[in-house]
Structure formats: structure tokens, C-alpha cells
């Protein structure tokens, strides 16, 4: 008897579930992002106001780390379930090249600045791909333990390679990007010649040889949260990570950590719309993008996390932190005081050379 009731229940749920799904799909957006504090800032600055305005329910999927692979698989299976996806610029370029992301006419689909400047001018050269709508400028930079570096706090990125002045472990991201550039810069290569040197086999060897001098003292990280954890534990003296993670460890969690902005590596993060959406879903995704990337919205996000808005017109609107009440402008990677010596990461060069250098880097790591 009991079993009969149970199976009736199962059958009913089984029948109702797809119907419920179908109804919701009409008024729902699946937005993919990175999770953690970053997704929380997007929810507060974009999602909640958008839902309040339009009634569209937003589902947050935290899969950006696997975005390229998953979009490929969805495309192959003919079942694209994502509407708007947050990816870094280099992933957006790859997806665009493979035809997996929609190409956009930025001026037609995005809001103009309040003074009427068209979107393409307001974003300027940050539109690195036809499929990409820039959202924030972040940087990969260094934090150090203020109580472990002695009397002289590091002011140059080359402190990473200086084991005499700053003994102890340092954490670096487990990939060649940025690390190779920093290594060559600290080996005496001029900033504007880094990629020329790195284009030669000798240049790659030279970068790896420089990294070799500190290899035994490096803890390699793969997730942005690892360096703050290692710094909080005192396991490392200094380490690279995304500037927003360091800001939250310093300002929100009161850890004894200082920022080393020298040679910070700028990168972009933004939206793409996957190819293959139905006309109706695509229209809904575009409506969201128009709203979420206007001047005010981008400035609002900066109240929750210390990443710089991608629009020029948003910069003057950046205010105070939403809960701590501190001015956010001095914590932005784009602030003139922080951006004195910046390393500009060359997307195209890395797109062409990534596979080759990755292989050499991995081989060097395994040695």
C-alpha cells in the first residue's frame, strides 16, 4: 500500500517537473559568473535592480571557470542553457573565434553614456573582441605580510625574486602568463621589449632561468582565494592574486597585508552572449546587457568590490564601499596612485603563443 502511494508520488513529480520548468523558462535568465564576492557584487549592483524593474527571475550559475569547455559541449549537444556569460577577455576572444559567442554591434545594443557619447567610444579600446562587452578592469598584483617583511616594505615587483631581502615562501599563479613577464622585467629587460624577448626561444629560457632562482620558494596557486588564505596563515611572505581578493582580506577581514601595485597586470572581464539562443531568449539577454552595463550600474558595482568600471563615464561616479563607508577610488587598480608602473598584458601575443609556452612552463615545473 505504502509503496503504491510512493510510486504515485514519484510519477506525479516526474510529470510535473518538466512542465514547471517550461513555464519558468519564459521569464528567467541564467547568468554565469565566477561565484564568491564577485557574484555577490553583481547580484547587488545588476541582478536585484533588474529583477525589481522587469520581474525577470535571474539564476546565478557559478561556472565561469569552465565556461569555454561547457559552451563547447552545449553547442555540440545542441542545448544551450546559458543566456549571459561572464568571462575574461581572452576566453571571450577564443569563443568569438570559434563562433560560439554572438557578435554584437556595441553602439546598437548598449546604452550610450549620460552625455550622449556612444558606447564604443565610452568603452574605448577595452572592446577587445566583437563578442565582448567589457565590465570591469581588474589586476593581478601582489600582497605582502606587513609583519613579515621587516622594516623595508617592498616597493618593486622584483622583491619577488629577492630572496636575500625577503626570505620565505611566495605564491604565484600556476601558469606562465604574467610570471614570465615579471621574470624578464626583473632580469633587466625593458618593459616595452618584454614580448620581443619572449618571442625568441632564448627569451623563454631566460625567463624560466630567472623563475628557477626562486622555484624552491614558490607555492603555486590555481584559485584566486588561495593567496589570501596563505597570507592570512603566514605561510607565504608575499603572493600574487586578483586585487579585489587582497582588498577584501585587508579592508573587510583586517589582515596584516599590504598592497604592492608595481607592475600590476591589467586584465578585463566582461559579458558574452552564447551563440545559438532562440530569438526570444536572445532579446531577453540583450535587454539585460543594456541595463547591466550602463554608466550608473558599472559604477554601482564598485561599491561592493574593488574592480574598476570599464566605462570612462563611470569613473567619476565611483563612491564609497556599501558597508564599510570607505572611498573606493584609491583601491581601484586604475587609480593614478596605483597605476604608476603597469604591465599591459598582450592578449594577441598570448593567444598566438600560449600553447607553446604552456608546454615549456609545465615541463619546467615538473623538473
Amino acid at each position, binding site marked *: 500500500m505504502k*509503496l503504491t502511494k*510512493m*510510486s504515485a508520488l*514519484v510519477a506525479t*513529480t*516526474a510529470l510535473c*517537473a*518538466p512542465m514547471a*520548468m517550461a513555464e519558468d523558462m519564459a521569464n528567467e535568465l*541564467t547568468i*554565469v559568473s*565566477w*561565484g*564568491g*564576492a*564577485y557574484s555577490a557584487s553583481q547580484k547587488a549592483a545588476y541582478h536585484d535592480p533588474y529583477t525589481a524593474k522587469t520581474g525577470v527571475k535571474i*539564476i*546565478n*550559475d*557559478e*561556472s565561469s*571557470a569552465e565556461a569555454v569547455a561547457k559552451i563547447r*559541449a*552545449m553547442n*555540440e*549537444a*545542441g*542545448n544551450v*542553457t546559458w543566456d549571459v556569460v561572464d568571462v575574461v577577455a581572452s576566453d571571450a576572444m577564443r569563443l568569438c573565434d570559434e563562433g560560439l559567442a554572438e557578435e554584437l554591434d556595441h553602439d546598437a545594443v548598449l546604452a550610450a553614456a549620460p552625455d550622449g557619447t556612444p558606447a564604443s567610444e565610452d568603452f574605448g579600446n577595452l572592446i577587445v573582441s566583437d563578442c565582448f562587452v567589457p565590465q570591469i578592469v581588474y589586476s593581478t598584483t601582489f600582497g605582502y605580510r606587513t609583519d613579515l617583511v621587516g622594516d623595508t616594505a617592498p616597493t618593486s615587483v622584483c622583491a619577488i625574486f629577492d630572496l636575500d631581502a625577503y626570505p620565505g615562501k611566495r605564491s604565484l599563479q600556476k601558469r606562465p602568463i604574467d610570471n614570465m613577464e615579471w621574470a624578464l622585467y626583473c632580469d633587466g629587460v625593458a618593459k616595452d621589449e618584454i614580448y620581443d624577448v619572449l618571442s625568441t626561444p632564448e627569451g623563454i629560457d631566460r625567463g624560466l632561468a630567472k623563475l628557477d632562482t626562486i622555484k624552491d620558494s614558490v607555492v603555486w596557486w590555481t*584559485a*584566486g*582565494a*588561495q593567496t*589570501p*588564505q596563505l597570507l*592570512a*596563515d603566514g605561510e607565504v611572505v608575499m603572493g600574487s592574486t586578483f586585487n579585489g581578493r587582497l582588498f577584501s582580506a585587508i579592508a*573587510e*577581514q583586517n*589582515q596584516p597585508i599590504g598592497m604592492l601595485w608595481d607592475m600590476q597586470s591589467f586584465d578585463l572581464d566582461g559579458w558574452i552572449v552564447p551563440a545559438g539562443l532562440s530569438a526570444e531568449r536572445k532579446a531577453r539577454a540583450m535587454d539585460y546587457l543594456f541595463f547591466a552595463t550602463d554608466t550608473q550600474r558599472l559604477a554601482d558595482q564598485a561599491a561592493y568590490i574593488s574592480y574598476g568600471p570599464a566605462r570612462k563615464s563611470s569613473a567619476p561616479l565611483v563612491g564609497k564601499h556599501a558597508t564599510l563607508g570607505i572611498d573606493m577610488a584609491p583601491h581601484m587598480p586604475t587609480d593614478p596612485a596605483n597605476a604608476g608602473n603597469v604591465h599591459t598584458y598582450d592578449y594577441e601575443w598570448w593567444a598566438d603563443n600560449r600553447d607553446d609556452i604552456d608546454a615549456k612552463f609545465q615541463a619546467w615545473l615538473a623538473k
Partner: protein
Amino acid sequence: MALTPVTPQTPAFTAGTAAAFGAFAGLFVGTAQGSGLMGIVLGAVILAILGAIAPMMAGKDKPVRWAVFFGFIAAGYAFGGIPAAVVGGIFGAFFGWLIFFVASGRYRESLAPYLTPGQVLWHYAFRVICGVIFIFLITPILVVMPLSFNSQDFFTFTPEMLQFKAEGYSLKHYRDFFTNDDWQNALRNSVTIAPVATVLSVGFGTLAAIGLSQPHVPFRRAIMAILISPMIVPLIISAAGMYFFYSRIGLQGTYLGVVLAHAALGIPFVIITVTATLVGFDRSLTRAAANMGANPVTTFFKVQMPLILPGVISGGLFAFITSFDEVVVVLFVGSAGQKTLPWQMFIGLREQISPTILAVATILVVVSIGLLATVEMLRRRSERLRGISPT
């Protein structure tokens, strides 16, 4: 129960044994303080001295043991405050007992008189090795529990925590779990997916096991192998296959899809446990029921089911835990709307090392212990009913 008369040991023997233990403990204390070698030497020397004294103090066990106990507490406190004093107290109590256990020869008491010294040594070495393995397995789980009460947002034992100050501890990660929408949605998804997947696994698995236990079914072994294959094939392969298959038939990213995928993973557990209970099932009972006019369905529910119920329930619990802990398949088959607890924990670990994960882990460990204790009690009950074990 003394098997062997005891004779007190020589100071040299006691000192040597105690020194070995001291060196082992010293290795850990020394490493924590920065020099493992120094710790080994100091630990060995201190315990050798205590071990040499003990045989001379025979009969005055109590005062000496208290003295060692408080001596270690004091030394620990001087070294590193309250936490070190607690560790010192544990070491002091153990070493105080150890030196008299060895010195008085009592360790020989419960062993057969004909054992060689080598066999006696192995008898105790075996127990020490088992203890070390046990500690190795359980420590990571135990470390997580106090960390989940951390008042900071990192996986760090802060100085306040180590000094047992109230401000070092907080329930905020538990509060975060119970108030944060992401975690609550994940919890809701987990508790709506796991029971339905379990019901499906138990239903199909039990029927399959009963069918496959009939001797006249053709290709029994082959069918059995296919049904339990989800347990053997690497999960990532099942997951990728399910992803493409479910996408084509419109089940990918739906509640039903995740439930079916989890049911497929749970069925092997049910088949295995139910098949095992059916081995002890007396088939003449079903024939007797048929003889008295019961149809097969009535026979199943009235006669067979109550007897194999413990196997069904423990299989169901394994199926439930499989669905509740599973992260790989749901990442492929599910979409954000079906985000389960393990998925949320996986994201949390990757994007933000938040101790909320530890709070959830602690809750899940407690739940898992409860479920496994139930399984064990059912197993004992079934054995008792079938008269296999008298206890």
C-alpha cells in the same frame, strides 16, 4: 586476569623504552617549534631519565605520576600558554602511566607466558601501528570541526582560538549557512533530489535483485554486471555520457534528469545489499505462502519484504548518501537550478575559501554518522533475527 607472573624491569630497559616514546613525541613537538632533531633528542633524554627513576620508585606510583602530570603541564604552559599546557597534560598523563607500566613489568601480565620477547614487542607494536593509522584517518575530520567555529573568514587557527578565548570563536559560519540564499537553495535541492533518487534506486534495485536471484533467469551474470557498472566505471565517464544523452532527450538541466542520474548511481548499492540478504532467505517460505493461496505480490509484501527489509534499508541509505555527496554527475547533468550542497561546497572552495564550507562539512559529518549508525544497528538486528550472531 593475570596470565603471567610479573617481574619488575631493570632501569636500563625502562629508560630505553621510554626514550623511544619520548623521541617520537619529541619529533612532533620539536617540528612544531622549528627543530625536529632537537625535539627528538630532548624528548628521548627527558623520558630516559624518568624511565630510569621509575623502577626505583616502585610502590609509590601515584605521587610520581601526579608529579609527572603536573610537571608536563607546567612545562607546556611555560612554553606556549594554555594550548601547550593541555597538550603537556595529555603527554604527562600518558608518560606517567607508561613508565610504571613498563617498569613494573605489568605489560607482560595479560600475555601468555611462553611468548618470546619478540612476540611481546610485536603484540604492542601492532597496537601502536593501528592507533597511528586511526589517528591519521580521523585527524583531518576532527581538525575541521573546531575550525568551523572560527570567528575569522580563513581556515586558520587564530591565536585567540588557541588560547581558548571566547572572541576567537563564533557561530557566524553556521548563521551564514542557515541565512544565505545560495546555501539554502542548495540544501533544498539536495533534500528534494536525494530522497526521490533513493526511492527510485530502492524500487528498481530491489526488484532487480529479487529477479536476478531466481536461478532460471538467463544471462544473470551479464545483467548483474551491467546493472552494477555505474559503481565501477569512472564517474566522469558516466557523467559525460549522461550529459550528451540527456541533452538530446531534453533531460539535461532538469530536476528529473538529476534524479534519474542519481538513481542510476544508487541502484548498484541496493542490488548488492539486497542480493546479500537474499542469500540467507529461505525459499520454502514463498512456496509455503503460495501453497496457502497468496498471490506473488502478497507473498512479496507479507513474507519476503519484511525479512529482507534490513538489506533494503541499508542499500537505500547508501543510495541516499551517494546522491547527497555526489558532485561530478550533477555538475554535468544539472544546471544552476539544481545546484546541490556538494556543488555549492565545490564552488565555495574554488572561488572563496570560506569557513562556511567547514560548518556545512561538520553538519554533514554529524548527519552521516547518524545514518551509518542506523545502518549498523539494522545490520545487527538482522543478524540477531537470523540467529547468526548471539550478541
